[in-house]
């Protein structure tokens, strides 16, 4: 099942995949055990093989233990999963590492707008540039984003980064990622946003450092880019 996961290219994506594996194997053992038990009972205790059923009400504490002890193990495993999953959540959504690069992401029916601060590194200045559906970032750099929406709820989903965050009209939501491998990766909208929802996708291009400089120059011009 886990071979279906797409390639991971973010720093925290490995943690997500690790968590996925842990839960998969823990629940997998219980799943297989429960199904085998069920199937065994149906075959072994079929009326053709069983004349007198076992009479057990499960009320005495020694009998209740047959249920409650496994349940106690489930509880312990739950708490373990809570701990590991909580740490992963904390790293993705609660920590905001210092920014190497910044971008504003705005959802609208049915496009993603990416606003770059330009060479001066500040938003709200004349050199800001907004490009639809194309997100360009350098590799190995923490990218901080501010996510918002112009109309309805969208969800900024980059499967290769293991990143998802709803874009909520009326709010600005901060987040971050750091891509580890150059390449192009798809961006999807993961919240139903209208009849064009299925076509609302963008492309994340992760550049090498040199490549990124070339992209900056071609976008802002050589003179301005040099100031950066």
């Amino acid at each position, binding site marked *: 099942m886990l071979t279906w996961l797409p390639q991971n290219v973010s720093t925290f994506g490995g943690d997500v995949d690790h968590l996925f594996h842990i839960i998969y194997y823990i629940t997998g053992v219980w799943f297989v055990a429960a199904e085998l038990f069920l199937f065994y009972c149906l075959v072994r205790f079929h009326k053709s093989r069983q004349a007198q*059923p076992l009479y057990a009400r499960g009320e005495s504490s020694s009998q209740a233990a047959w249920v409650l002890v496994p349940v106690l193990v489930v509880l312990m495993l739950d708490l373990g999963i809570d701990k590991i999953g909580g740490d992963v959540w904390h790293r993705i959504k609660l920590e905001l590492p210092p920014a190497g690069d910044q971008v504003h992401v705005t959802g609208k029916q049915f496009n993603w707008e990416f606003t770059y601060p330009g060479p001066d590194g500040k938003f709200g200045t004349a050199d800001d540039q907004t490009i639809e559906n194309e997100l360009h970032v350098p590799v190995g750099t923490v990218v901080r984003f501010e996510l918002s929406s112009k109309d309805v709820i969208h969800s900024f989903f980059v499967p290769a980064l293991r990143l998802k965050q709803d874009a909520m009209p009326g709010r600005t939501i901060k987040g971050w990622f750091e891509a580890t491998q150059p390449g192009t990766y798809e961006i999807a909208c993961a919240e139903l946003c209208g009849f064009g929802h299925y076509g609302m996708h963008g492309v994340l291009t992760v550049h090498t450092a040199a490549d990124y400089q070339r992209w900056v120059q071609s976008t802002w011009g050589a003179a301005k880019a040099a100031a950066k």
Partner: protein
Amino acid sequence: MATATPSEIRVGAHHEPHLGFLRSYVFSVDHKVIAKQYLGLSLFMALLGGAAAYLIRWQLAWPETYVPGWGYVEPQQYNAIITMHGTIMIFFVAMPFVLGAFGNFLIPLMVGADDMAFPRLNMMSFWTLFVGSAVLIASFFVPAGPAAGGWTAYAPLSARPIYTGVTWGQNLWLIAVAIEFASFLMGGINFLTTALNMRVPGMTLWRLPMLVWTELIAAVLFMLSVGPLIAGAFMLLLDRIAGTSFFVPDKGGDPLLWQHLFWFFGHPEVYVVGLPGFGIMMEIIPVFSRKPLYGYKTIVWGMIAAGVLSFVVWAHHMFVSGIDPRLATPFSITTILISVPFAIIVFSLLVTLWGGKIELTSAMLFAVGGLATFIIGGVTGIFLGSAGLDVYLHGTYFVVAHFHYTLMPLAIFGGFAGLYFWFPKMFGRMMNETLGRIHFLATFICFNCVFIPLFLAGVAGNPRRIYEMSSYDFLKPAQPLHVIATIATLGLLAGQIPFIINFFMSLVRGRKAERNPWHANTLEWCTDSPPPHGNFSQPMVVYRDPYEYGNPDAPKDWMAQNEPPAAPAPLGGGQIRRTGTR
């Protein structure tokens, strides 16, 4: 809690032979007739919901091709179809099926009452639901089409007509859903009152059949959770038609408020639909294992714990919605902890099978088949409940597969199990077992072949509610999964044909059912099949719990709840004390 004394029970007071056709079969106050009306309505609505599933799956497997019997599915239409599929299946199929039909039919019979506590309110509940269904169906025919904002109707998409282009379709959707809520609110009052106040002597709470317990807990959960959403539905309606901005940020509203109201109801709602499914399994599995239900009280406490917990998990639907991320941690913990009470229920049912004398009737096959598939729904809930992993899996086909794996085993497998089991009591005739087993095999195999591939598509990152995937390169490998799921859906739909044939054929030509064809203990089996008006021809008294099967000290392998205990050798003419009438 006071229980009625025999003299208070209006035995045989409902012969009423003078009622005309209309009062006997249409505007009847008899809980058994009303139960059948709920059953008919839910099966009819299931045809609509199933047709919607057919269109959805066809479009996903073979995008933008001609769908036989329909034509081409447009993107806007697609959104409307998925919205109606979810709405119909949850509110107008699952709820009338497991609550309306089984709750209505069985609660009075199982507690030994002659009818519901409020028979006229009961009739009104059904006809209110009927109106709600009619309003929902009417929304298909208004200009601009039916609601297309998803069954969750997230604002602001649903709050302003410009965002979807849907006008009265969404308004009627809100009205229909609000009417449905009102209907089940009235039904819930009846369930609660009947289960608590109409019990015959000896029927203590700890002797209630599990089905009654589950319907009781479901009714309480529903009544406590639905109020905020009825208010929310009217607020959303005002946003649409009066220009208010409860859920639209441009004039100070908050889209997240809708999600809180929706899921504060929406999560308990899962257990409202699910617990009665478990209740049905817990009635059937002991009967066909000839064993007592293992750990009755533990299960009841487990279900109460699940009910309480269900009120503090709703934000797990909203981990990545923009709530304060610190909130995710406590909600993630409560969500994953809910596996504890459900583990109690599942393990208890599994241990009930151990050492039994198992007979695989159609009812039993659907019960254990539902249990086997529910386990998948249960364990995959851990993946989604873990906030760190939900960042990736939220809003993908993993979620779609997960909730179909929880709701279908409980509401649909459970519902079918119940139908095969209580059909003789409802209609006085037996169903055909061969057709029943074919129906089970087709349903069980095809159901798994639909949703296992969808788990994999979800792992591949496939977002749900996508009209067609072909424009995404990373989803190309997932496309064959959708083809498998669609072919299996066709099989699943075709697999219901044996059931439909069986249902109608048995109705007319089935073997006449005796009172207690399965040798079961609960009170409904102590009266005629089908029971007369007033249900019982003599006052019922209960002496024991409902799962006394296979007791080696008993004269036979089942002991009906109303069967007086074997008299101990009388010592000097002493009176036999009737134990159990507490």
